[in-house]
């Protein structure tokens, strides 16, 4: 009898599970938030859907709505959508310039609470309105895939430090560390470009790092496994360094941060006549100098802005007992920096 009851329960309770059949739902793949023009609402949101055509091409479809909560937007969009809107396919979340300055925590927080949203969503900021960014027509595989892949490969091979929803959230919550997000700009209806990194203090954008600083920024906060950089030599010759691998070590004593950066790379292109050992030594020296100078500049800048994307506070906490955050906030303003860089050019190609 008990068994029978159990079987009945199994069969009856199964009706309680929500079914979401793949082709009967509208999967949200991208979302953008801007500040609402109407002060009554908090934001104006845009949801991006993909519509797959029989020939496998993708049509980007956007719906917009206003609201105070993230839920309001979905309710708004559901009114316009032919199928139920689900959030599990989210890949990219874009925040417009105004809303990023005002604070984005409540919106990101709601992502984190939605169990069907993955941790690898890319959270980005945009130069212009997020709605416009999502309304472009980039590539053939859909806007969200395009933007996602754009950031993905820039993280893997170029100068964007590793970032995603999970990391942004960690950076936000960890005391002694601040959040940073990649910044995109729509330059034409079918083109979008990476233009830098937004620095946040708590959840408010305070400054933007331009592209030129990204190499040094990544050296400080992340490690390279496959980077590129051009070094300018005395006579105006250029040397391109490829396959850069970097690691950094930060040691903080009471009021002094010693940052050690190790770079390994290969010279692949050189505009001068002959790439002798002396030239290679010169390249190493030049790069070391440049990294030391620029990184120091960046650290000073962060200090002035009062943000800490490198996580120096966190690093100090791991190295010191009885660490006090309150005290750290004052200490940070007067912290002294010392950047040491060690460059090692491993090879220069096969021709000597």
């Amino acid at each position, binding site marked *: 009898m008990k068994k029978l009851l159990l079987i009945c329960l199994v069969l009856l309770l199964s009706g309680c599970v929500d*079914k979401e*059949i793949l*082709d009967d*739902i509208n999967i949200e793949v991208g979302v953008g938030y801007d500040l609402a023009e109407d002060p009554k609402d908090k934001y104006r949101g845009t949801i991006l859907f993909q519509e797959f055509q*029989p020939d496998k091409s993708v049509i980007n479809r956007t719906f917009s709505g206003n609201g105070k909560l993230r839920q309001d937007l979905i309710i708004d969009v559901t009114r316009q959508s032919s199928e139920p809107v689900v959030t599990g*396919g989210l890949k990219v979340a874009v925040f417009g310039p105004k809303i990023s300055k005002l604070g984005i925590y409540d919106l990101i927080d709601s992502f984190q609470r939605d169990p069907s949203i993955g941790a690898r969503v890319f959270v980005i900021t945009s130069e212009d309105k997020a709605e416009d960014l999502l309304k472009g027509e980039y590539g053939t595989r859909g806007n969200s895939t395009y933007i*996602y892949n754009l950031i993905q490969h820039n993280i893997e091979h170029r100068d964007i430090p590793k970032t995603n929803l999970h990391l942004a959230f960690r950076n936000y919550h960890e005391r002694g560390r601040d959040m940073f997000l990649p910044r995109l700009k729509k330059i034409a209806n079918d083109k979008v470009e990476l233009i830098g990194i937004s620095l946040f203090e708590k959840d408010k954008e305070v400054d933007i790092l331009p592209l030129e600083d990204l190499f040094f920024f990544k050296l400080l906060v992340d490690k390279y496994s496959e980077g590129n950089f051009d070094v300018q030599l005395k006579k105006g010759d250029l040397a391109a360094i490829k396959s850069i691998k970097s690691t950094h070590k930060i040691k903080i004593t009471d009021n002094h941060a010693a940052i050690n950066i190790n770079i390994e790379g290969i010279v692949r292109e050189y505009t001068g006549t002959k790439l002798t050992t002396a030239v290679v030594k010169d390249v190493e020296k030049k790069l070391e100098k440049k990294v030391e100078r620029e990184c120091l500049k960046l650290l000073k800048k962060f200090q002035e802005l009062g943000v800490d994307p490198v996580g120096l506070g966190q690093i100090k906490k791991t190295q010191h007992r009885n660490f006090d955050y309150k005290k750290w906030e004052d200490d940070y303003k007067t912290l002294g920096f010392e950047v040491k860089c060690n460059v090692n050019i491993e090879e220069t190609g096969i021709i000597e």
Partner: protein
Amino acid sequence: MKNKRIKEDIQHKEWEQSFIKSKDFKKIFYYNQKTDVRFGLTFMATLIDENIIQDGILPNLLEDEFREIEDIKQLVPVADVQVCDDPSLIEQKLMNGYVMLTIETELKHFGFIAAQKEIVRGLSQPEVEFSVIGPKEAFVESMGQNLNLIRKRLPVKELIIEEFTLGSLSKTSVAMLYMENITNEDNINTVRQRLKNVKFDAITDSSYIVQLISDNSNSPFPQLLDTERPDRVAGILAEGKIAIVVDGSPHVLITPTTLVEFFSSFEDYFLNWILSSFFRLIRLFAVAFSILVTPIYVATLSYHYELIPKDLMSTLITSRREIPLPPILEALFLELTIELLREAGARLPTKVGQTIGIVGGIVIGTASVEAGLTSNVLLIIVALAALASFTTPVYRMGNTIRLLRFPFLFFAELWGLLGIVFCFCVLLTHLTRLTSLGRPFLEPLYPPRVVDMKDALIRLPFEKQSRRPIYLRTKKPIRFSKKKAKKQKDIDE
């Protein structure tokens, strides 16, 4: 004289009652030319070889001096000649193809001369367990022939053949084979006991024995391995297992066995250990794939769209777009189609069977996709799953895998991936509880026996196989001395 004869006829009729109704019951009287003794031959014409009577029995009995029954031992040139006085044996002997000899003067004694007609199919290639490398003989229906094939491969006196007669109607001879000095005594006793306890009137094949003596007859998993390869039987006997040969069945049973043995083909032992290990792993993967892939498709498409990689999304959505059926019906439709094709293919004669391929491949497959009944992605998945299920070397296990897919599908529809995990737990619980002859069926995976891993998921080289499987608890756990085997005399040091 006349009275006597009538009496004799009356006396005979008591046991002849049923016999005389049959057309093939023959009772003929002859007179010896020298002594004028009148003797009768009684036999079942369908069971005996008339040539033996004509060439071996009759000429001698008619022409030589034949006075009493005992004389036949000298006169008849047949090896199996018996004289007895027990009338209860008559039926059994006649039905086993003996010719009964009676003389008027000795009514109490009967002579029995063996004259069985042996209709034997010639040895053929193994069809179910075919292997490219290795011996090409397979068992046939005749037990004598089969025992001969096994004995030839193990010509030692320790190979014991115990015979039983099972089935009150079929009187099937069943032989239990084991190595006296190796096989565990408990195992032998258990098999003997179970065979003796079989209560079924007609045992026509070894499959009956499988179901009658297995530990859990309600399990979809076969707990006795059946094989048609004499080399495999010889191999497992040497390991210390027990073989059961049933007369009239070309499949010999092996017990105790484990789950992994069902996924090992005997060809594994003919190939280099690296290759055979690789093939075994592929087979195990194929089984998991075959059971799980359609349920995972149904679960993912019905509940877990989040799990689909973004690049796969467009393929899945575009293929599903025009399909009116939900994923479960779509999958059931295709799975059932494949099952139907399989059943039809198995029943139809070979020549007509070819049309099945055309019907299945072109008409049902392509047409149902074009008609928009199923998505082509699922068609590929189901076809691959079917293909993977064919890699199971033991046909009996292949059938089980066919069945297992359906509960998985059902629960995938009910609860998604959770249902698949639930089903998997139930299956695992069942398998851990299952035994074969009281030995754990999942060994060496559970209980974990590292020593027995040498011939389970992978097969290590023969030098590493110096111990018999420990779950068999053999009398001689060591097959050969590892130290001696290591010495290679032809290598100068």
